[in-house]
């Protein structure tokens, strides 16, 4: 079970059971719907961007524990960040869950709490679960309305 705990860290399980910022946002000025056609997971990300700053961010949808926890922790991490910082976090997170261990180590240092997703790269079929909310957020910031993990 030790390997499995690498994936299902306590903090991930906590966020999946009690996700933060799990709500629609009427005052959002950016949003996108994300879909992982492989497993049917859906995530809608809402953002309220003022000037250059993410003032508020939330999500709705249905997915596995990894995608729900990823969305929950992403929304916590993004509030108050500049758009450039949000983009940078996306890139670091992507490195963490997909890249070779050397880049992942650097990414991990910069990601703070989000580093708990480091175990995901050992589970190739679950990488898309973790990255779906992030792709959706990126699509929302880019002005797109849809994101897919495909």
């Amino acid at each position, binding site marked *: 079970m030790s390997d499995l705990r690498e994936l299902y860290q306590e903090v991930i399980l906590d966020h999946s059971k009690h996700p933060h910022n799990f709500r629609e946002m009427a005052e959002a000025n950016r949003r996108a719907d994300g879909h992982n056609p492989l497993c049917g997971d859906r995530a809608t990300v809402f953002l309220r961007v003022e000037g250059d700053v993410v003032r508020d961010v939330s999500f709705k949808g249905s997915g*596995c524990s990894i995608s729900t926890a990823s969305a929950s922790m992403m929304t916590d991490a993004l509030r108050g960040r500049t758009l450039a910082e949000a983009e940078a976090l996306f890139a670091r997170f992507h490195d963490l869950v997909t890249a070779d261990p050397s880049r992942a180590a650097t990414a991990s240092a910069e990601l703070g709490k989000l580093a708990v997703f480091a175990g995901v790269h050992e589970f190739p079929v679950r990488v898309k679960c973790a990255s779906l909310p992030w792709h959706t957020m990126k699509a929302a910031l880019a002005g797109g309305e849809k994101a897919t993990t495909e």
Partner: protein
Amino acid sequence: MSTSRDATRAALAPFDVEAVRREFPILRQTVHGKPLVYLDSAASAQKPQAVIDAEREVCEVYYSNIHRGVHRLSVLATEAYEKARAKVRRFLGAAESREIVLLRGATEALNLVAQTWGRRHVGAGDEVLITGLEHHSNIVPWQMLCEEKGASLRVAPIDDAGEVDLRAFERLLSPRTRLVSVSHVSNALGTIDPVKRMCDLAHAAGAVVVIDGAQAAPHLAVDVREIGCDFYAFSGHKVYGPSGAGALYGRAALLEAMPPWQGGGDMISSVTFEKTTWNEIPYKFEAGTPNITGGIALGAALDWVEKVGLDAIAAHEDDLLRHGTALLSGIPGLRLVGTAREKAGVLSFVLDGIHPHDVGTVLDYEGIAVRTGHHCAQPVMDRFGIPATTRASLACFNTRGDLETLARGIRKVQEMFG
């Protein structure tokens, strides 16, 4: 059923699952330190030694291209391949071997019917009728056809148990219905459709009937003449044969009247730059060098299934299905999806508040292989208002112990995410 099959069956000892298991080398392994419990045969079944040996024997002893050479190996390979065709004929209960088109599998078989019979006979304003149970491979080829021809795809709904609403099916049949295509057994839920009855109804309305038998052949004795269907699509890999080897059964008169599908070698009788004439059936539909080793090994798989006995396999799996249904029904927070009165081989379920992907990952760490997701049947998932299920599917080599391991695994999942 052929009498030879009955005779073979009668000579056999009672079903011995441990002896059957010993014939599957892949089962002798551990996954994450636990003995492998393979409950994903609805996706693809494992291969007995007889099938592995058959593939190797072709490659080691007499591999060559077929229907072409005058040399010894080509003659042997051709004979073996045509014997495999005859075995498929017998397995499906067809009258003649020329009614068996050897293809990659059920998906290719369904596409062949759509692209040949369908393109010739389905026109603007016509209808194609399927059911709400279908695998994507029995939806998309008809959608493509209907879109091209300006025809409509109609869908007979399913009820909460996962059974086709036969009254609705009957109401949807009309003089506009050119073709009806239904699964024999649902891959997502395990429902056995009353295909004979559906065939009769569809024929009464003047439609041609296609049965998608991919999921049925490993579990039920198939007899296309008893069913009365016009076409039957069949995949070898679900019946312990290799992937990439399967067949389409088609009534000879229909196959003869159909235009060819792919052009190439083997499907012609003569070619000039001015005009090409088609080969006779079934070769008219078999352009190019086929899956020679796979086709021959498929024949070996069918021999193996007949040796074990399809009735014995069905009885064993029925016992497993009942045992599994009782075990899983006793788990609080678990809901079985698909509770048809007639079922084969599938236990599809959801757990309260736990996503199937998480179920699948945790079970994997218990050595249990299940399928999680929409099972290539998204409309079935939509019907039940769920994005996905966890599906445990059964084969002749599974045991009651496998299902008990599954039930323990599910309780571990619930402890972890509860």
